[in-house]
């Protein structure tokens, strides 16, 4: 099972963090920090695996990929395949790219909600549920449509309409 998905920039600022075990927030911060501590010390062109037992406890593995200013990190246990997880990071990035057209760090910064929508379509309770970025995009678009529809039904807030109706 997948235990955590993290995206952080090369300064160590978290841009996305989702833990599938219940982890208290301060512990989350600590984990992200220690992951960053390991990642930033690694050279380019080395393998994408990090031995994570010391950070996440026994039977945990970590793969990461470095894109431009961002690290994409997946933490998982022995029921996942390392190379498949690397592919999955690729899927995630591809999906983001489709969604934001040439995705950059700023897109992640300003689209908190949308990124979580994407994430929730790919991962579900620590399981990989969808590996095709087109399928993910389909669902994400549907959800966005639904969201804006539910907002436009009542573009003017109830309290305001009530006030006008007087």
């Amino acid at each position, binding site marked *: 099972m997948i235990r955590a998905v993290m995206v952080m920039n090369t300064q160590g600022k978290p*841009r996305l963090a989702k833990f599938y075990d219940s982890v208290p927030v301060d512990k989350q911060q600590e984990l992200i920090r220690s992951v960053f501590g390991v990642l930033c010390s690694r050279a380019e062109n080395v393998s994408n695996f990090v031995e994570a037992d010391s950070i996440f406890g026994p039977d945990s593995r970590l793969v990461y990929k470095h894109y431009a200013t961002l690290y994409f990190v997946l933490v998982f246990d022995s029921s996942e395949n390392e190379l498949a997880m690397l592919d999955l990071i690729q899927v995630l990035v591809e999906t983001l790219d489709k969604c934001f057209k040439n995705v950059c760090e700023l897109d992640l910064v300003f689209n908190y909600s949308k990124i979580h929508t994407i994430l929730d379509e790919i991962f579900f309770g620590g399981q990989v549920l969808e590996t095709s970025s087109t399928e993910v995009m389909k669902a994400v678009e549907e959800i966005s449509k639904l969201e804006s529809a539910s907002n436009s039904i009542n573009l003017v807030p109830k309290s305001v309409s009530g006030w006008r109706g007087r």
Partner: protein
Amino acid sequence: MAGGVSSSSYYSSSIMETLFQRTLEDLIKGLRLQLIGESAFVSKAIEEIRREVKSTDPHTKSTALQKLSYLASLHFHDMSWAAFHVVEVMSSSRFSHKRIGYHAASLSFHDDTPVLLLITNQLRKDLASTNEFEVSLALECLSRISTPDLARDLTPEIFTLLSTTKIFVRKKAISVVLRVFAKYPDAVRVCFKRLVENLDNSDPQILAAVVGVFCELASQDPGSYLPLAPEFYRILVDSKNNWVLIKVLKIFAKLAPLEPRLAKRVVEPICDHMRRTGAKSLMFECIRTVVSSFSEYESAVKLAVVKIRELLVDDDPNLKYLGLQALSVIAPKHLWAVLENKEVVIKWLSDEDPNIKLECLRLVMAMVSESNVVEISRVLVTYSLKSDPGFCNEILGSILCTCSRNAYEIIVDFDWYVSLLGEMSRIPHCQKGDEIENQLIDMGMRVKDVRPELLQVARGLLIDPALLGNPFLHRILAAAAWVSGEYIEFSRNPFELMEALLQPRTSLLPLSVRAVYIHSAFKVLIFCLHSYILQSESMTSSFPDNLVLGVSELVLKRNMLEGSDLTTCEAPSAHCSEGFNPSNQSYEDLSIENGGDRTINHGQTSTPAFSENIFTYDSIINLINQVELALGPFTGSHDAEVFERTRHILCFIELIKGEITECLVQKGKTLESEEMKASKIIKLISDAFSEELGPVSVSAQQRVPIPEGLLLKENLDDLETICADFQVPASNLFSLGSPYYGEEVGVSPFGLQNKEESEPSNEATSLLTEHRKLHGLYYLAPEKNEIVGNDYPPANEPKLQVNPKNDTEDLVKLTVQSLATNKKPNHAKTRPVVVKLDEGDLVTITAKRPETKDDLVSGAVREVLVGSDTRTATSQRNPSDKSSSKRSKRKGKEKLNVDCSELKENLGDSEKLKHENPSSRKNKHSINGKERRHKSTGKIGEEGEENGQKGKQKSSHRHARHKASHRADAPLNVVSQTPVIPDFLL
């Protein structure tokens, strides 16, 4: 900004809030501007959110919650206070709000969130919604926060969704089952069949989800899922989806070891996949499956090794790394695979990627054997000099670990190994002080033949003043000092060693190490004096009179009466041990004297330095003066250990100083009785010191029966709280309120660390002494403790001190016998004898076999799969057992048993508990409890609270589960029965 405007009371506040509320985007922009610093900005924003979230307007409320979720998720602010608002927003009819609410819930709710009780109906409603995205939200939330109650209440809804036609929802419903089963095992009875039906589904998404679920379930208890093997087999052969195949392979990796017929059948398709697939991930999974679970299928392994080779020579560092990992998995069973790739492995030892280097190092160590250990270690040590500190220590650590494995199994030439340790200690980056310390001492105790060389190495380390400045070496120096004291009889020049032990730069050492130095100096002194006496006794010549010294001695002696008390207290204890076995003692006396003579003779023949005149009157007096001078300042030491030991040695000197000169001067004359006294004391102490220290069996403590009236709880939690209280005052207690204590800590962080480790044992020592008063016979003789101190493993001499009157006589006999048989040296090889104790010495604690715990999920799964006939096999609990008092009793017993069985695993005890059967469980618990109670105590004591806590956690976990089963009022069976696999597969 909202903060300022909303205070105006012109309009309804909710309108203002809505119109001027900062959106999440505003918040992010503000954070990025960071005009007033991030933390200030965030706390201001939180304040705002606290106000806005109370708004009656759903839009304002949900926006506030969204901002809060953002801050919780990426700025790590607690949002548990908003739990009730989360529930409110979740129940909004508008999808966008609902989504925010659900997101916040899955982010912030946990098992103890009180409002969880309020969301059951909301979830139920949304699970039944016609809008698949609403259903999806509820499922997603459930997969994160489900509790036993939620899982129980919502099982019917999940069951319905498992066969919905909407793929989008169905795959999520399948996945959520995992969490529901974990929380509410009885859901298995309802949902399992439908879950299995999904294995036949042709939709790849559904299949991926359901195979993923089974992969997780099977990793917890593979045995229960054997009946489903045909289904998995079909998927393995038919599926084209790599994700699905990887998961199925993982399932088979778990199932195959349980059922050889299955393995035989599956191995071929796996090899097919390995050959054909273009996807590296699938290929690697096939390789891993073969090397980990099909290692007895020669052809499959060969194919896998060919493929591993492909990975190893690939340019992609990831593939290289995984290839190396696969090799290290296969190394224990098929070393040839590693040897075949030896060149590659050694080449990549210098790769730039630390992962690859480390993996190569492991493989190199796997190749180490008796014949090549010298060569490989040489290469690695040289290499470590060139590598960065981190990797250097990895190398040293793995050499140390490999060479010491199984009581130095692969070492033939111990002299070489000891000098290698000496060499390692001098490597600048070496931080393996603790390990080297342990091994130096351990070898000293186990391997008799290595002691002379050991002493040489220790000497080399001790006399080098440069080493004293390196804090990483302090532990090694402590070991060297101990060795030099303990095996001083092999020294060519004890005076030189004494000088090294007392050199001024020892002030750089932490106090705990200095204490060892001082005590070793004591031993060296005793040795010199004893040799001197032996030598002078054998001499016929007499010296000119010197009455002045005799007088001053008498005066001194009177002054130091207090001191002599201290010193002589060792002598009677030596007498004591003599008293128990006089014949043995006298024999030892003889041998020691002979030994002493032999060394002297040896010295005479081999080195001129150790001629008869080395222990001259002058040299001895010089030695004594030197010791007095060097140790004088320590009488004011604030460290208890240092102070105590210094006092011992100084008082001893005062006691014998005069007499030693006297006895030579007045030999055979008027003061003969005085002379006898001094030399007798020296002889006695020397005897005490030359008592050989042996290694201690790991299980030695368990063999000591618990004295009656001693209450040891299974659970040492109370102790932990006590110790926690003690931690702070203890350091003061032992430093005697030193004003300089802080300073000293600053100088030597190692000293402090060591102190903290030894303090709890000091606590224990005081308890021990009390027990010793009552049952002293089962503990080490007091003078032993004195010698060894807290820093070293105490000697184990169970052959002494057997009290025949004790009622536990039999057990002790057993101990003696087992030790005796195992201590027998094996002269088969030219290799020196390594004293090994019983199997307890060697069995590593890590060898924990996967527990076949009575998992409720798998119990239910078996029941569903195999049919209900197994139910009859399990005895239902007695009706009387259900009364609450009995139940709690049972729990207690069970808890005890958990500890015991864990212990049993750890110890590798030959005694075996029969496989537990729920029907006979009740009776057995009591028996087991009694039988093993005494064993558990020592273990827990040794392992410390950590272990105890673990045990407790585990047991409490089990209790929770039992509670669940009680509530369901349908006790599950856990019969370990090999499930029937349909024959068409096999």
